[in-house]
């Protein structure tokens, strides 16, 4: 009876995951979707704790279980609540790592249940039969395969996520050595080789290999993420995310548990697609991201490959102040630089000031401005800019022709005309913000250095454009002072 109720709980869980994910992919319903999935998760977990039984035996160690859950809940909740909005990708990466580790630990424990018989009796066939009944007739070789899969994928996901986390909060620097990729491939082959060997002929004497595989997997996770450019971490996290999903699914096979299975596969599939979509949005291929063709090498200030060309004209703060306060419509194009300078609050202040002067101010948000999708939305939301003022690319491009001044704050690639004109450019084909449709374009950045893609930007040399050098925050503050003093 109770087991039957449990089945129902799991069924509900699986369905809510699907529905939740569906709702999550639509702005209108996203937030509810998250709650739906959470609800399903709660049902599945509680069901397991109170209803699960294996050949008639219920679960024990409630003390430990509730203790663990309590700790996890408190810590997780606080961490998630406290974290600054702009640091959320790190958080996601961290939590993803936890999931991976969890999967790996499960494998380790189950492995020790599994080997015990071996250490006693060497006859393989013997335990074979034992397990046969014990493990919902999944037969031992298959059983070992699943354990190993869970271990390897889980560990890679864990180690990788930790590095990604480190990179995002700047603790870990990009790093790669010659032949890195070959090294990784060799590592992977070694892991798979050992695993196969273990499955084919497993006995007490080579059981230790299991831990070797564990170690190598962690190593692989580290070196897999190391060479990838810090800016590409969102993509990497999404990929590791789907890995963890698969690891969870392994658990589903292990315990013949449908909700783990379906939930895991669901995330595995959706995560993979999502990763690809993310790459598409910056129009690059996944391979290109992983090999880190430019993400790694040229990203950020000091990026190479910038050849000076043509002339650009600068504009003074006071002129900027005048132009903007007498404009009737101003569009602000925020970019990665705004995030680096943490200038969102100053920016919001400028906006309010101009609005008071009767200037109509809007923000033009490029989908991949910044370093994660929605980065700018998060950033400006933090400085509570009202959502109505944010325009998506399509809208914005319709607005520019009627705009007097476009103020570009630390954005570069997303306004680079090369994406439309120059087929040889690495960002060719990426939709951009057509700022040149506006009457004047003012660009704020610290230098003529290129942006993420590490390429020259013609826009800066166009007649309509004038440069306003300096750190975004500083510049905005001075600008505000200027306008006030007009």
């Amino acid at each position: 009876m109770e087991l039957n109720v449990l089945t129902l709980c799991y069924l509900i869980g699986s369905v809510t995951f699907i529905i939740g994910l569906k709702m999550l992919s639509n702005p209108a319903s996203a937030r509810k979707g998250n709650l739906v999935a959470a609800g399903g998760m709660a049902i599945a977990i509680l069901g397991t704790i109170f209803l699960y039984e294996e050949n008639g035996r219920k679960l024990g160690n409630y003390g430990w279980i509730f203790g663990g859950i309590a700790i996890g809940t408190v810590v997780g909740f606080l961490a998630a609540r406290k974290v600054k909005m702009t640091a959320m990708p790190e958080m996601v990466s961290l939590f993803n790592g936890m999931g991976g580790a969890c999967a790996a630990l499960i494998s380790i424990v189950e492995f020790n249940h599994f080997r015990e018989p071996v250490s006693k009796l060497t006859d393989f066939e013997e335990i074979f039969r034992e397990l046969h009944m014990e493990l919902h007739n999944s037969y031992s070789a298959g059983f070992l395969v699943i354990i190993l899969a869970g271990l390897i994928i889980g560990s890679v996901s864990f180690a990788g996520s930790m590095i990604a986390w480190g990179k995002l909060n700047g603790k870990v620097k990009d790093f790669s050595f010659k032949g890195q990729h070959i090294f990784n491939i060799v590592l992977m082959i070694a892991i798979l080789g050992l695993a196969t060997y273990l499955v084919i002929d497993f006995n007490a004497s080579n059981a230790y290999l299991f831990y070797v595989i564990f170690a190598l997997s962690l190593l692989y996770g580290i070196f897999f993420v190391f060479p990838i450019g810090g800016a590409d971490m969102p993509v990497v996290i999404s990929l590791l995310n789907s890995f963890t999903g698969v690891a969870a699914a392994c658990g589903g096979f292990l315990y013949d548990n449908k909700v783990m299975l379906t939930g895991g596969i669901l995330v595995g599939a959706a995560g993979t697609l999502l990763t690809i979509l993310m790459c598409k949005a910056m129009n690059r291929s996944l391979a290109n991201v992983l090999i880190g063709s430019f993400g790694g090498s040229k990203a950020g200030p000091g990026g190479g490959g910038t050849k000076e060309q043509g002339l650009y004209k600068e504009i003074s703060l006071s002129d900027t102040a005048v132009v903007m306060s007498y404009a009737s419509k101003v569009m602000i194009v925020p970019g990665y630089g705004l995030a680096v300078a943490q200038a969102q609050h100053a920016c919001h202040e400028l906006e309010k000031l101009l609005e008071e002067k009767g200037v109509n101010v809007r923000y033009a948000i490029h989908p991949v401005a910044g370093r994660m999708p929605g980065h700018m939305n998060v950033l400006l939301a933090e400085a509570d800019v009202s959502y109505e003022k944010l325009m998506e690319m399509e809208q914005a491009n319709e607005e520019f022709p009627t705009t007097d001044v476009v103020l570009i704050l630390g954005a570069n690639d997303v306004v680079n005309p090369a994406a439309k004109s120059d087929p040889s450019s690495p960002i060719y084909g990426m939709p951009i913000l057509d700022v040149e449709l506006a009457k004047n374009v003012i660009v704020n950045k610290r230098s003529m250095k290129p942006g993420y893609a590490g390429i020259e930007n013609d826009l800066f040399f166009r007649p309509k454009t004038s440069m306003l050098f300096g750190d975004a925050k500083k510049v905005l503050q001075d600008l505000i002072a200027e306008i006030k003093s007009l």
Partner: protein
Amino acid sequence: MNSILSWITENQQIIYIVILMIFVGIEVIGRVPSVLHTPLMSGANAIHGVVIIGAIIVMGKAEHDNYLALILGFLAVVLGTLNVVGGFVVTDRMLEMFKKKKK
């Protein structure tokens, strides 16, 4: 070959479930706008926290003298919970900013 086929037959139901789930996973998020990529990733991240169920089972089955199982299991439960709770809470916070979305 032969064994693979019989394996398929034995597990055909599971195989169907997995395959269909893959289709669902792909189709269901096919239309996501890029601004939702990050929250969606975070939401999916929370969902795979379902692995905690495995941790609970491990924990609950562990004999009282089997300290390895107890300790690792306990750790697993903690980490799993972190994944689930943290995941959903972060996602919810990310999505707060969409509430005014007039779509």
